[in-house]
């Protein structure tokens, strides 16, 4: 494997999110908190979501982990902010598809920066890093809906 291959994993935009994470911190006011970790590698994320009238008003995260898990969390918070819960979940499913290496086609939904993570699909050992934040979001929304 050459560096070209590594470059498909460590895209510039990923490293930018890793170095300058967006929405890192805590949500002011009413919010729900989800803690999730990846027990096999020690990555850890705390996600805070403010959901009003089925809209994700705010999303912030904190945690420790590799460039893939932290940049993915940064991108996710950016992507779901202002979206309907249903849309956020749909994005999560699209993201899972992306990680499975499947073509993602949906003109209604722009994944933006997130598409930079599609290179992860070629590194099976790292897929769980990328999906950690999304799993946390799904769990938060589930808990909220059950409550």
């Amino acid at each position: 494997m050459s560096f070209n291959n590594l470059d498909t994993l460590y895209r510039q935009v990923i490293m930018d999110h890793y170095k300058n994470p967006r929405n890192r911190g805590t949500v002011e006011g009413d919010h729900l908190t989800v803690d999730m970790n990846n027990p096999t590698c020690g990555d850890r994320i705390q996600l805070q979501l403010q959901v009003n009238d089925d809209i994700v008003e705010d999303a912030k995260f904190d945690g420790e982990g590799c460039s893939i898990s932290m940049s993915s969390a940064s991108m996710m918070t950016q992507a779901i902010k202002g979206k309907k819960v249903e849309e956020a979940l749909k994005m999560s499913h699209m993201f899972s598809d992306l990680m499975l290496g499947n073509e993602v086609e949906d003109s209604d939904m722009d994944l933006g920066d997130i598409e930079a993570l599609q290179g992860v699909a070629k590194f099976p050992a790292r897929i769980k890093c990328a999906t950690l934040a999304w799993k946390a979001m799904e769990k938060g929304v589930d808990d909220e809906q059950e409550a």
Partner: protein
Amino acid sequence: MDIKAVRDAFPILHQEVNGHPLVYLDSSATSQKPVQVIDKISEYYRGYNSNVHRGVHTLGTHATDEYEGAREKVRKFIHANSTQEVIFTRGTTTAINTVAVSYGRENVGEGDEIVITPMEHHSNIIPWQQLAKATGATLKYVPLQADGTILLDDVEKTVTENTKIVALAHVSNVLGTINPIKEVAAIAHKNGAVILVDGAQGAPHMNVDVQDLDCDFYAFSGHKMCGPTGIGVLYGKKSLLNEMEPVEFGGEMIDFVNLYDSTWKELPWKFEGGTPVIAGAIGLGAAIDFLTEVGLDQIVEHEHKLIEYARKQMEQVEGLTIYGPEKRAGLITFNLSDVHPHDLATVLDAEGIAVRAGHHCAQPLMKWLEVSATARASFYLYNTEEDIDRFVQGLQTTKEYFGDVF
């Protein structure tokens, strides 16, 4: 030691990974297997696969002889007094759990203490946590020094007359610390406690003499010492094992079974309920033959040279933090400046170099080191200075790579 002959015995080493010759530096997770072990297992399945300790047919006798022959090899390898003291288990984890459940539930009660260290693998922490919770005993830790060693003075202070069990690693799987087992055993015994040694990282890499160490229990795994997965050993002093109840009940381990009551076979079989891991035990026997033929002393010396060389070469890499004491077993746990260990391991993998990244099943120790994860390079008899050169080059490459993108 003829390193070429050793390497030639391991078919897996002679391949390319991601376009580069494989450099395998993850033997502390699991070692590779020599052709002698692979062939021995194959011979069993091809030639005399049968259940052991039953039936009178020829194949069954052959299988039983090989299975019990492997037990004798283990006995000799760890210098146990008798094969009755050698119990085959699924691995180190099962061996420790057997002691925690069988010996622990019988001998530990409210107000008693169990003493361990913060450098333990999860498999030598959680069984004791569970035992403490179930019995009302207290779990105590011998504190670690800044370099990741323990002081005998601290062991003296932590172990009291209320201590019933002391459990610690022979060698730390993260720090490489070699613990003074014999001295700790003496302190445990002085206080009336028994000592269990987690030998998962010990038995593969050094001469183990359970009688000289005077440990009461010694647990280790086959797959870290050139044997197959799924087989391990619990050594225990006969006097203790005799008093202990089995934890698994069923076939193979019984003497007489009546409608409402049963009796157990004698040692070691009373602890081996169900059809055992026959191929695994026979494979472990072959691994012991292999290691013995190469020579444990030669292996120790080889690893020592490698670790010295690796330290010297790694010191030249700027931004590298090495964890653990000066005097260590054949592994180095480290971090490279701001690069997360997973990212480091991915870049090294792209270069054909296999290292471990993560918390190494030692979360309390990671907390103590104040890191969330580390990378680890571990060495065994088949590694060479060239492997280390490639690895150190890989570290430089990683730095350059992330230096560019950061």
